């Protein structure tokens, strides 16, 4: 045909979508639990990327350990940031605007800190998972297969934590009705801290998977974060299922969209749809839950 292979486009869309979903689910989890929007989410993603890079290149550790280090590093940083910055703001009567401003400031700070420390250059990484598979004309590099698998495992893990563990119950209870959760003896500041840590670690996971494909630089988190915003608005802020569905939808639409609209205009359309969705359904496309 025109050189487009629909199956290939769909597969590419799922790969990209699973990463959008990882980013978006973190933003959504933070929103759902703490009622704040994290504008610095992309920078935690970046931290994950740099940690992976240095673990692989400087420490020369095994890729799995490197990914683990990336998650751990970001989790710890997230917990510290929540404890030192967000805690004070979230306990104020007026917290919406201050938390937005603080995360925005944090984002700019972290980005430029990385720029000063690591330089503006793109740091390339070898694929963690080598090899290319071909199935029925669809090209599948091992790294991309790994991405989808990791995303599935990550979602299963997060879902199970939320569903089955005591901490998961505490998160869900806090997000649905914080004031009542307090009456159960749930320590919501602790819930906030760990939720923030886990959420930004999810972003770092996405980064460690994508870094070999897109390279590491101080701005690497910006696009994924803006994309994740689109996803959470589509899926409804605070909904994990919405984040997954929205992420997949955006990935596939973008991938297939290349056949229709040239790639540089895709984001324009995506953002325009985002505004339109907010206009028509302020609670998001799938987010009918919050009345």
């Amino acid at each position, binding site marked *: 045909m025109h050189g487009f292979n629909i199956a290939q486009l769909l597969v590419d869309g799922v790969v990209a979508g699973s990463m959008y979903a990882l980013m978006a689910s973190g933003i959504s989890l933070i929103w759902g639990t703490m009622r704040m929007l994290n504008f610095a989410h992309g920078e935690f993603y970046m931290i994950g990327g740099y940690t992976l890079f240095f673990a692989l290149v400087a420490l020369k550790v095994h890729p799995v350990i490197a990914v683990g280090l990336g998650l751990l590093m970001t989790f710890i940083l997230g917990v510290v940031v929540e404890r030192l910055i967000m805690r004070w703001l979230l306990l104020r009567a007026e917290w919406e605007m201050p938390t937005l401003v603080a995360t925005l400031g944090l984002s700019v700070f972290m980005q*430029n800190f990385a720029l000063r420390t690591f330089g503006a250059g793109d740091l390339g990484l070898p694929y963690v998972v080598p090899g290319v598979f071909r199935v029925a004309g669809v090209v599948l590099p091992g790294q991309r297969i790994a991405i989808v698998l990791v995303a599935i495992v990550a979602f299963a893990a997060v879902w199970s934590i939320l569903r089955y563990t005591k901490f998961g119950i505490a998160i869900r209870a806090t997000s649905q009705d914080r004031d009542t959760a307090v009456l159960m003896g749930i320590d919501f500041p602790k819930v906030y801290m760990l939720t923030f840590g886990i959420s930004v670690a999810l972003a770092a996971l996405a980064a460690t998977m994508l870094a070999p494909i897109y390279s590491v630089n101080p701005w690497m988190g910006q696009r994924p974060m803006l994309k994740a915003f689109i996803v959470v608005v589509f899926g409804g*802020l605070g909904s994990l299922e919405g984040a997954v569905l929205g992420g997949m939808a955006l990935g596939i639409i973008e991938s297939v969209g290349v056949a229709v609209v040239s790639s540089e205009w895709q984001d324009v359309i995506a953002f325009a749809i985002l505004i*339109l969705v907010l206009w028509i359904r302020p609670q998001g496309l799938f987010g009918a839950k919050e009345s």
Partner: protein
Amino acid sequence: MKLKSALIQITIATVLAALVPLVIHSEYALHVAVLALIFAVLAASWNLVSGYGGMFTFGHQAFFGLGAYVSALLAMHLGISTYLSIMIGTVFAMVAGVVICLPVLRLRGAPYIAIATLAFAEIVKLIADNLTSLTHGESGLAGIPPLSPIGAMTFSIADSRPYYYCALVLLAVTMVLVAAVLASPIGLAFGAIRDSQDAAESIGVDVTKYKVLLFMLSSALAGMAGGLFAHYVTVLTPSSILGIDVMVQIIAMALIGGLGTLFGPVVGAIILTVGLELLRSLGDYQLMLYGALLVIIIIVLPRGLSSLPMLIASAATKQPSLRGESWKHPIKQREP
């Protein structure tokens, strides 16, 4: 603030500022001063929607950039007077303000408004990036004509002085306009909407009408500042005037001076532009400082420098904090 005293203060400040070029002869220092004045207009215009209107937008750079690009392109391609092109750019920005205002009107909750306005600004930036035949994308639009001469006063890149006065006039006009609007019934409506939208509606304020008006006014002023900026620096790139960094600067300036105060954003713009220029040795650490400042201000001084005297006074008299409010476990209604 009473209009009269506000006008007197604006006049005094303007006169004093007009004397600055007589004292400072360094071209470089004047250049910084011009930027400070332009950013002051920008911060003051954002303060209108956010500080006085209570709608925390994250896409104000879009109006600034629109005003700049439209005016620059018109002046370059049609050869019209730069003042006319700035006016047209201003109208463009104003129309854009109305367009983005419409979805924002339906949104309650700062995060939604932030996302919507940020998405809008990203659209404008992407358009500027992608319309390379017109804007040359990220390589930048160069060769923008300087401001057209006014009588004997001519403008060139080499001399910042005329621009200084031009920017000062724009700032003075902005301040007078803002002060006059705030002192009028419209200002009361704005205040009512900011403090309680429900109550404002319940006493007959047409909330939609005044929010649109606020957006129009604010985006028009930002567009005008953008136009002046374009014909001053004569080079535009999408990331330099349409990036999120610009928004961060605007927010930092307005916050450090004090949101919702008349002079706060202007003072903030001057402090940050000049102050960070003085710390030039820090070089590229500027943006890092902006980021850190935002975080620190919002935690320590959420009402900006303007609240500092009050804070000191209350600390000196050791006013007891509200009793019975447990800061450890505050129970508040937090519905989005």
